[in-house]
């Protein structure tokens, strides 16, 4: 996460900290992707800089999250399939389910 000055903001950057006005009203939520219009609006609000997420930081967090989910689904499938773990068709079915359930959660 780094502080980026208004004139250095570029479309596609991700907001790392929720931005509020003096009364506490939310101007921009954490996780929001910047675009040209938003950057223009920021200059109208005379906001000097915005906390932006580093690209690697985003990927890393997501990867950890996905890995956790994957482990959880894997464990529950392991229990369900324990009696048929020798069978190749059932193993194939298990990996299909893992892929599908993981994708469903991420969506």
């Amino acid at each position: 996460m780094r502080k980026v000055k208004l004139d250095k903001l570029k479309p596609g950057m991700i907001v790392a900290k929720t931005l509020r006005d003096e009364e506490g009203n939310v101007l921009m939520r954490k996780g929001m992707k910047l675009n040209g219009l938003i950057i223009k609006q920021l200059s109208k609000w005379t906001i000097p800089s915005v906390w932006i997420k580093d690209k690697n930081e985003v990927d890393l967090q997501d990867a950890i999250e996905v890995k956790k989910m994957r482990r959880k689904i894997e464990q529950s499938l392991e229990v369900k399939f324990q009696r048929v773990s020798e069978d190749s068709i059932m193993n194939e079915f298990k990996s299909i389910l893992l892929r599908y359930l993981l994708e469903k959660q991420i969506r």
Partner: protein
Amino acid sequence: MKRDEVKRVVDKIVGLPTFPVILNKCSELLQDPFVSTSKMAKVISKDQSITSKLLRLVNSALYGFPHRISSVNQAILILGFNNIRTLILSFSVFDTLLKDNKSLGFDMGEFWKHSIGCGAAAKVIGSRMGIRQPEESFVAGLLHDIGKVVLSQFFLDDFISVLKIAQEKNILFIEAEEQVLGITHAEIGGYLANRWNLPDSLTKVIIFHHTPSLIKDNTNLVFTVHLADIICRGLGVGSPGDDLVPQIDVSIWDDSGLTMRMLEKLLPEVDEEIEKANSFLSILFEK
């Protein structure tokens, strides 16, 4: 529990007057090649409870028709005689088995979720297996574990011991039944289906959904439900009484023409159909 005792109870259920009066009439009418929609609708409309359920169902998210269907006549025209008959059959089974037995204090919610899920999954798989009546697949999936309903409604103590053993030993419900009772829900359900004269195809599903290779011909519907059950267990849709995925019958799988790749593509469709089918439950339980 003795086999004779089960048979005695099942015979008693058969004796209840509400069961398939309409259903028998419908079957008779279906034998007549010249029967008209209006004649059929007249017979069904005589039963208010079934008529109201039928109309609620065809107007539910399960079908998602763009216009309101306001008469039995219309419902028959849209869904066809055979599909309507199958739906009425499932209403009758529920009405008869679940009569005044809500006070038993056992939560069957997860069980019914599994049954509805199997119905929805069977509908999707059945269409790939060449089964022409989608409601036949749906109701076959919905009712395949009807023997467990008999157990839970008329032999609650036995039902609970089976559940307990299945959990403790981490075995399938049907294996626990063999150990505790010496008779399985497939046999009990099959006995009931025979006594009720349910369609032969449905009776076969009830008896052979764990052992589809034991039947020689017309394996499609039985295998469809066998697979639907395995998919729902894998996806974790409700609970059939244990938390295990049983073995797919490999010999029938090999002959089915299905591949795991195809199955993978069907999964989102199965989920979508399950979502739609959930409206079925509230309609079935309405008195």
